[in-house]
C-alpha cells in the first residue's frame, strides 16, 4: 500500500555520521549549490538495485559505523549496499551478508555496526525513503543545512518515513558478484589539468610518483592528502568552477581531492582531475590509507567510463534469491 510517508524506521542510535542521500542535486552549481548525493554512487545504485528501487532513490549513507533502526511499519525490505556488520538484534539468524536484502517485520531491530570494507555503505529501503526534496533532491548538504533530516545527520529519536507501508512481494535478493567496496591499492587515474600549466614539470612528476596519505581531516567536502608538497607557480587564481574529483593544491602545496559537498568554485589551482570511473573510489578511502595517482588522457577516461557503465548495467543479471 502506498502511504504518504508514514514513519517506518525509528532511529535508536544514529552511528558516526549517517545522512540521507540520493543521486544528488543537479543544475544548481551556478548558484553555488554543490551536487551532494552519495559519495560512492556505485554503492547507492547497487543498494537501490537490491531493493528494487530506481537507481537514484533516497537511501541512508553510513560512514564508519552505522545506526540501530526499529521497524515501525508492517514490514520493510532493507538492502545493504556495501559490506558492514549488520545483524537483526535478539535473533539467532546469521548476519546480513554484504550486498544483500532482507525483509524485516514491525518491531524488528536492525543494527548496522562497523563498515568492514571501505568507509561507507548504503542502506536502501524498498520504495525508497520518503524525504521531501529541497531544491530538487533529498540529499543532505550539511554545510548548507538543507536536505535529508532538516539539513543534518541522523540522530536518535528521528523517524524516517518510507514510501511503502509493506515490503513488496517476492524473494529477498543478493548480488552474485562482489563489487569493490574498499578502494583497492590501484592508483587513482587522473587527467592532468585544468591548471596543470601553473605547476612545474617536477611538481607534476611528483604528483604521479609519490604516495599520499588520506588525512583524518577529510569529509564529504574533500579528501585532504598528505605527502610531498606540489608548489604552484601562482598560489591564487581567479576563482573558477570545480568538479567532484578536482585535485586542488592549497598554498601549503598539499592536494585536496574534492568530493560531492565541495564548494562549486575555488581559488586554488587544480593540478589534475580524477576520472569519472574512479570518483566513487574517492568515497571509499579511509583516513590513513595511502593513495597514488596515474595519468590517462580524456579519450582513455571516456573509454573506461563506457566499459564501467556496461559492467554496472549488467549487474541486474547477477541478482539471485537468497
Amino acid at each position, binding site marked *: 500500500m502506498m502511504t504518504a510517508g508514514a514513519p517506518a524506521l525509528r532511529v535508536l542510535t544514529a552511528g558516526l555520521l549517517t545522512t540521507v542521500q540520493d543521486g544528488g542535486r543537479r*543544475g544548481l552549481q551556478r548558484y*553555488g549549490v554543490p551536487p551532494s548525493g552519495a559519495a560512492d554512487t556505485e554503492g547507492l545504485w547497487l543498494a537501490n538495485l537490491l531493493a528494487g528501487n530506481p537507481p537514484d532513490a533516497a537511501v541512508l549513507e553510513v560512514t564508519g559505523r552505522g545506526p540501530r533502526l526499529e521497524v515501525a511499519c508492517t514490514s520493510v525490505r532493507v538492502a545493504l549496499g556495501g559490506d558492514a556488520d549488520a545483524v537483526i538484534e535478539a535473533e539467532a539468524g546469521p548476519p546480513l551478508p554484504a550486498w544483500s536484502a532482507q525483509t524485516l517485520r514491525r518491531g524488528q531491530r536492525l543494527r548496522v555496526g562497523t563498515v568492514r570494507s571501505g568507509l561507507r555503505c548504503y542502506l536502501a529501503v524498498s520504495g525508497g525513503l520518503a524525504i521531501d526534496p529541497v531544491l530538487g533532491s533529498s540529499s543532505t548538504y550539511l554545510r548548507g543545512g538543507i536536505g535529508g533530516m532538516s539539513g543534518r545527520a541522523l540522530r536518535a529519536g528521528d523517524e524516517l518515513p518510507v514510501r511503502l507501508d509493506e515490503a513488496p512481494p517476492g524473494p529477498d535478493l543478493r548480488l552474485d558478484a562482489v563489487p569493490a567496496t574498499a578502494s583497492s591499492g590501484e592508483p587513482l587515474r587522473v587527467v592532468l589539468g585544468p591548471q596543470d600549466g601553473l605547476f612545474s614539470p617536477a611538481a607534476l612528476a611528483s604528483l604521479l610518483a609519490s604516495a599520499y596519505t588520506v588525512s583524518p581531516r577529510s569529509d564529504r567536502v574533500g579528501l585532504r592528502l598528505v605527502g610531498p608538497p606540489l608548489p604552484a607557480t601562482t598560489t591564487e587564481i*581567479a576563482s573558477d568552477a570545480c568538479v567532484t574529483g578536482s585535485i586542488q593544491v592549497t598554498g601549503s602545496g598539499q592536494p585536496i581531492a574534492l568530493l560531492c559537498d565541495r564548494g562549486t568554485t575555488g581559488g586554488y589551482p587544480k593540478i589534475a582531475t580524477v576520472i569519472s570511473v574512479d570518483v566513487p573510489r574517492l568515497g571509499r578511502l579511509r583516513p590513513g590509507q595511502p593513495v597514488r595517482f596515474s595519468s590517462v588522457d580524456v579519450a582513455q577516461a571516456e573509454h573506461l567510463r563506457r566499459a564501467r557503465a556496461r559492467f554496472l548495467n549488467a549487474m541486474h543479471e547477477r541478482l539471485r534469491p537468497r
Partner: protein
Amino acid sequence: MAVAARPPRYLPAADTALVVEFPDIASGSVLDDVLDEVLCLDAAIARRPPPGVLETVPAIGSLLVEYDPLQTSQAQLRAALDALLDQPAVAPRAGSMWRLPVHYGGDDGLDLGEVAERCGLTVAEVIDLHTHAVFRVGMLGNLPGLPYLTGLPDALRLPRRDDPRAAVPTGSVAVAAGMSCVYPVTGPGGWHVLGRTPIPLFDPASDPVFLLLPADRVRFDAVDRTRMAELDVAVASGWRPEPER
C-alpha cells in the same frame, strides 16, 4: 560571438567537464567585458544546449560545461561549442541594481579595524570607500548564493587572511582577493569581515531562493545598530528588498 578579441581556451576537467577559459583576465584585475563573454556563451548554451550537456557554471573568467560522457564525448562537445562561439552573441540578462544595508564594525565586522590599519586608512574612510563603490556580481560560488563582487576600490585590496576562520557568520560582508563578498550561510572563510547585512542571499523557503545573480549590481548602505535590529525583525517576518531597477 565575434566580440572576443582572442578565442577562448578549452581545458579538460577529466571526462565530465570542459573549462572554457577566456583570455585577458589580468591576474587580480577583473574585466567586465570578460564576464560578458562568459555570460554570452552561457546564454547561448542555455538557448541551444549541445547534446549531453548537464549544467554550466559561470565564473568570472571562465565557463565550466559539465557533460555526461555516456551521451557525448569531449571532442564532440568542443566542436559544438566552437559552432556556438562562431554565431552572433546571445545577450545575457541585463542585471538589477540592489542596495543592501550593512552594519559595519563591532561584533558584526571583526576585521574592520585591522583592514583600516593594513590599508593605511581610518575606519571611517574604509566604510566610505566600501559604501561608495558600485559592485557587480561576477559569479556565485563556493557556498549557496555567495556573490563574488567586482569593483572593489584599489585602496581596499588585501590578500586573504593567513588564518582562515572555521565559521564566518551568515550575512558577513567581507573583502579580499580584489573583491568583496557576502557569506549567505555560516561557513569557513579567509576574507576580512567588515560588517553584516541582515538581508538573506540564500533562502530555500523563499522565492527567489537566490537574491543576487551574475551581472546584478550592488551598493552597500551603512546602518546603525538600531536600524539593524529593526531590519532583523522585518526580515524574520518575511520582508525582502526589491531591486532598484
